[in-house]
């Protein structure tokens, strides 16, 4: 008889000494708030959506549109917005579908797989945010250049950029871009990393067996 079988006997004996909750106590519990991982992932992705959309609204005021008009960029911007909103809505739909798919009655392996799939969607969404931020950033720089070239008063020799200034300027901007993207990436990795570390470990544990 091995150790575990000894334990099994004891396990059954202990059954009688387990403290019992009353009907009312259990009834109260079902209305308590859940603190499950899924809920947290959901909250965080909602916040991410909110931040993205909020930033967009904040940037696009009337003045912004007037400027775009001035540089003949209205059509281009509208197309960009339509595309980015379509992509965003696609992600909202995916998020919704993923959360519906999470089902505590699945087997542990299936459930973990579903949750990790949710994370993947979030990952793609963040990727989309990063790429589109980079795109907008680079695009704005191009506009700055064009404006610079189009503005006559800068023909003033004191204000003109020589090649050294341009290198510094572009270098500085690229560095800033890298920092911003890096921060977004870091936040993402930290938040989901902490949240899903244990789950990931458990999933790997089960996965190992399938090989």
């Amino acid at each position: 008889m091995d150790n575990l079988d000894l334990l099994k006997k004891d396990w059954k004996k202990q059954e009688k000494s387990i403290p019992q909750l009353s009907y009312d106590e259990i009834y109260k519990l079902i209305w308590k708030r859940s603190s499950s991982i899924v809920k947290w992932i959901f909250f965080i992705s909602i916040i991410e959506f909110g931040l993205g959309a909020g930033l967009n609204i904040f940037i696009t005021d009337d003045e912004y549109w007037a400027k775009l008009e001035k540089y003949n960029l209205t059509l281009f911007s509208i197309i960009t917005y339509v595309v980015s909103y379509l992509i965003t809505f696609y992600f909202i739909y995916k998020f919704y579908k993923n959360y519906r798919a999470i089902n505590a009655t699945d087997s542990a392996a299936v459930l973990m797989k579903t949750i990790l799939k949710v994370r993947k969607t979030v990952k793609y969404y963040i990727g989309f945010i990063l790429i589109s931020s980079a795109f907008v950033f680079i695009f704005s720089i191009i506009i700055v250049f064009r404006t610079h070239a189009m503005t006559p008063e800068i023909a003033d020799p004191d204000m003109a950029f020589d090649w050294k200034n341009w290198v510094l300027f572009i270098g500085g901007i690229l560095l800033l871009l890298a920092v911003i993207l890096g921060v977004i990436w870091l936040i993402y990795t930290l938040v989901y990393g902490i949240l899903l570390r244990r789950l990931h470990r458990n999933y790997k544990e089960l996965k190992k067996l399938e090989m």
Partner: protein
Amino acid sequence: MNKDLEHQFVTNLEQNQNIAHKICRIYTNDQESHNDLFQEITIQLWKAYPKFRGDSKFSTWMYRVALNTAITLYRKKKKSIRTQDYDSVHFKIKTEAYDDTAEQHLKLMYDAIKQLNDIDKALVFLYLEDKNYAEISETLGITEVNARVKMNRVKTKLQNIINP
């Protein structure tokens, strides 16, 4: 949710609450986390209850949802500190030196289980609950052969923790 469903659910859970308590015992180290996990299990069961069709027994269904909660959904509020476990082992060994050896051995076993990972704990739990490999494999989502292999490894692991 209507009142009937609520009543049905709470009655079912009241009768089967031992399953959840035992899972909490394996997965948590103190009373506070025990209560936390019990609460989360109750919430997850209640959320999943409309999908419970009654084609299996409530208890069978409960094993699955409750274990899923412990392994997958539950977010530990504080990291349980391993050293605390060790301390309590030493403490017990010192103070209960005259205790009967079998009992001491059991305590060591329980403590060894606490050091396993979440999946291994689930296996041990299902084993202690007298579940067969078909049920274990179904709950965890692995094949029966894998469940057997895994169980043997867990036994070795426990053995190594107790007799390093």
